[in-house]
């Protein structure tokens, strides 16, 4: 794509500016920069982001941005604490059981909560997450009136920590707030967490790697082999295979019978169309459409 650059007829563009703009436009990375600079425009930009409009960057407590990364069969998690410019990341194990973005987001939340616990500064914390899925999955442990079970939860070990760590904070009278923000909308905190999640994916520190002993299914689609425990995607793949097989069997079964319902239906339709002698599948389209 071509971009044209215009300046004032009275102005002149320094070569350095020209080069900088060119590099920015030609950069093939789909991600925004994660600048937390203090120049006027950066401050204005930051205050216009979702978190900025909520006043989070002026929050007196601690603000954590967290994110998970799931790419090339490896999951990574990372967080960034804004007030102390502290960060953490790691890789998630159990990749052989199949990857999920939700697992990565859960791990990221857990890392952030663990960091808040270690800090022991009794500050209220806000945790920014770009995963609505994570918030929904953890919501049922927060609301009253529901009996939630860890049984069947594929990420029970991580979820247990996520439930336990805020519970400890509640007992200490400390505030913990999760806020959902949109991903990759130029919010520098989200971008920083995203970078650390990528870093964690490439790191050697691996956590939550104990197998869950769930059966793992594998299938090949377009030459790519997928592995996953039972989930809606696996069920869909099974249903597709069954449909292919059973369509043939059903057709053979019906065709082999002389007095099956298909023939009776065909006879009825042929009588109606006065096309005796023609099997159903040879009825002209014009006659079919007239019924």
């Amino acid at each position, binding site marked *: *794509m*071509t*971009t*044209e*650059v*215009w*300046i*004032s*007829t*009275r*102005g002149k*563009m320094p070569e350095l*500016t*020209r080069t900088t*703009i*060119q590099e920015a*436009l*030609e950069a*093939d990375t789909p991600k925004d920069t994660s600048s937390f600079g203090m120049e006027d*425009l950066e401050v204005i930009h930051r205050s216009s982001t979702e978190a900025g409009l909520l006043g989070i960057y002026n929050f007196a407590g601690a603000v954590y941005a967290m994110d998970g990364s799931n790419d090339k069969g490896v999951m990574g998690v990372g967080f960034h604490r804004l007030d102390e410019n502290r960060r953490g990341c790691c890789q998630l194990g159990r990749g052989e059981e199949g990857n999920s973005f939700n697992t990565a987001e859960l791990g990221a939340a857990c890392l952030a909560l663990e960091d808040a616990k270690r800090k022991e500064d009794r500050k209220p914390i806000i945790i920014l997450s770009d995963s609505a899925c994570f918030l929904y999955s953890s919501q049922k442990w927060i609301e009253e009136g529901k009996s939630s079970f860890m049984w069947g939860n594929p990420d029970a070990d991580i979820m247990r920590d996520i439930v336990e760590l805020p519970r400890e904070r509640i007992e200490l009278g400390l505030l913990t707030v999760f806020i959902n923000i949109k991903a990759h909308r130029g919010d520098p905190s989200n971008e920083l967490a995203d970078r650390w999640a990528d870093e964690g994916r490439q790191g050697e520190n691996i956590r939550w790697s104990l197998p869950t002993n769930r059966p793992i299914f594998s299938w090949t689609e377009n030459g790519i082999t997928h592995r996953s425990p039972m989930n809606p995607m696996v069920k869909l793949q099974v249903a597709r295979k069954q449909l292919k097989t059973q369509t043939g069997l059903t057709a053979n079964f019906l065709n082999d019978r002389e007095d099956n319902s298909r023939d009776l239906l065909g006879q009825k339709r042929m009588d109606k169309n006065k096309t005796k002698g023609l099997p159903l599948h040879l009825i002209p389209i014009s006659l079919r459409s007239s019924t």
Partner: protein
Amino acid sequence: MVINWSGLDDQEKLDLIPTLSTTDNWILLTQPLGDSNKTQPPFREATKTVYIRAGGGRGKMN
């Protein structure tokens, strides 16, 4: 000040033109232009200085 001209609506462009006409500390970025392309800066004080092809070379206009 770098402005994504294509990202502004007509009213925003009209609002900006008086300021841009009297200052010279700005840079406008636009999509490829054509005779009927409304993204072309519609004021005389703007001059095209360079066009950049993402992933390709750069063309210098002056």
